[in-house]
């Protein structure tokens, strides 16, 4: 009963959303180049089904790889900031400044530096845009660890590494996953940014671009929906990981 409800409620919400969208287009009698309606989408998906699969896969693996790099690098930076006051003072302005740069402006810069390396550029952008939340949350998680937690192991002569592994790391996991939920959508945006802006790109972003070039509006909307679907998929993948590794942080409901 509970699981049925868990699946049915979001499903009905999506259906209602599609219905409202369809009604909006129908009532206003908009042509599909102004706004495609949901009923225009299945033919567009079907017509380009192989392209969708291929490009969707491109977008997916680049996003996941970029995010993976962001997790490794972000965690390392976060550890540095969490353990060393000097590193924290030194890195914060750099990180905040870097994060403030609109990433769209970096696309031409990166494209020029690594000319023609489309895969590399895309992964790089996904990484650049998504490591910041991870670094900050790991850093804060580690630096706000209550001293008693450290003391119970330190008084036994445990090494810093042991304390990190047994206490600091697991204790930071809930914050880490909170950040990862933000980062996963950011990485996705980074991937698509390069795919759309870079010439001769691949991936769903490039498919969107080709829809635009060819005046195929239903295709453009279909890409948007595909992007949303992929985004949801990735987000729930993170949620599942969180359940597995940080499920303890969820309070038992009484």
């Amino acid at each position: 009963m509970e699981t049925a409800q868990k699946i049915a409620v979001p499903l009905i919400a999506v259906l209602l959303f599609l219905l409202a969208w369809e009604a909006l287009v129908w009532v206003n009698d908009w042509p599909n180049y102004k706004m495609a309606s949901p009923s225009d989408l299945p033919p567009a998906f079907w017509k380009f089904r192989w392209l969708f699969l291929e490009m969707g896969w491109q977008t997916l693996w680049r996003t996941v790889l970029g995010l993976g790099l962001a997790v490794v690098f972000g965690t390392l930076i976060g550890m540095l900031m969490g353990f060393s006051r000097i590193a924290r003072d030194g890195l914060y302005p750099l990180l905040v400044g870097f994060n403030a740069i609109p990433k769209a402006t970096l696309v031409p810069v990166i494209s020029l530096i690594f000319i023609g390396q489309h895969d590399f550029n895309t992964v790089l952008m996904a990484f650049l845009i998504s490591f910041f939340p991870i670094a900050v949350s790991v850093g804060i998680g580690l630096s706000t660890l209550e001293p008693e937690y450290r003391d119970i192991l330190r008084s036994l002569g445990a090494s810093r590494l042991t304390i990190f592994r047994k206490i600091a790391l697991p204790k930071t996991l809930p914050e880490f996953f909170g950040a990862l939920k933000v980062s996963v959508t950011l990485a996705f945006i980074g991937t698509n940014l390069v795919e759309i802006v870079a010439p001769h790109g691949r991936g769903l972003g490039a498919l969107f671009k080709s829809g635009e070039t060819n005046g195929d509006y239903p295709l453009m909307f279909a890409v948007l929906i595909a992007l949303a679907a992929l985004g949801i998929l990735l987000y729930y993948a993170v949620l599942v990981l969180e359940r597995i590794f940080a499920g303890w942080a969820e309070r038992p409901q009484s």
Partner: protein
Amino acid sequence: MTHLIDIKGVTHAYRTKSGPLPVLDGLNIAVPHGEFAAVVGPSGCGKSTLTRLVAGLMKPDQGEVWLHGERVTSPRKTVGMAFQNPVLLEWRSILQNVILPLEIVAPRMPQAEREARARHLLDMVGLKGFEGKRPSELSGGMRQRASLCRAIVHKPDVLIMDEPFGALDNFTREDLWQTMRDLRAAEPFTCVLITHDLREAVFLGDQVFVLSGRPARTQMVLKVDLPADRKLDVLYQPRAQEMLHTLRDQIRIAQGRDGEVH
């Protein structure tokens, strides 16, 4: 007589923005093997600093801390600690929480042996049946019991407790005093208990050290001449009342309010 814990003339100051803040001033505390030392004093008088010194987590500016005839300069495996906050790890079960020190101190001990030891202690403090629960599923008193088990699971010769029962309600606290007494009878260890509760100090302590206000020095040492196997009623008997009275007066002196009408 040699003392298991010997704190000799320890002076310490913290460096703050507004200059050094002296917290301990020539402090002397000596605890014989197997004895229970309760340390009381006004708040902010440096009692917690004392626990960190004995645990070897910090070094004093002057003076020496000796454990077992060895000078303490760094953390040792033979110390157990318990705080007001039970600091249990939320991602571990109660049993796994109690085992934690063994993972550090006795990395080669078989898991089954560790678990047997932890189960035995949990049983003693009345947590049988809660081994598999998460800390968040337990009440405050139960969590503190688990925290006590963790502090002594590796058979430390010194147990250092910093107001371990401070956040509990009175009845739970009295229950835990008795648990503490029973644990000591079953598993002998030398103990330093920092507390604000004079009744707690008299019920559990063999000696009560009264510290002066900051910077703290040993203002008075009270020998608690009550039977080792104390019941709670002992606190309501004249001898204990007399000691509580003495301690109360000493605290008032430590607070610098000796002349006030009370």
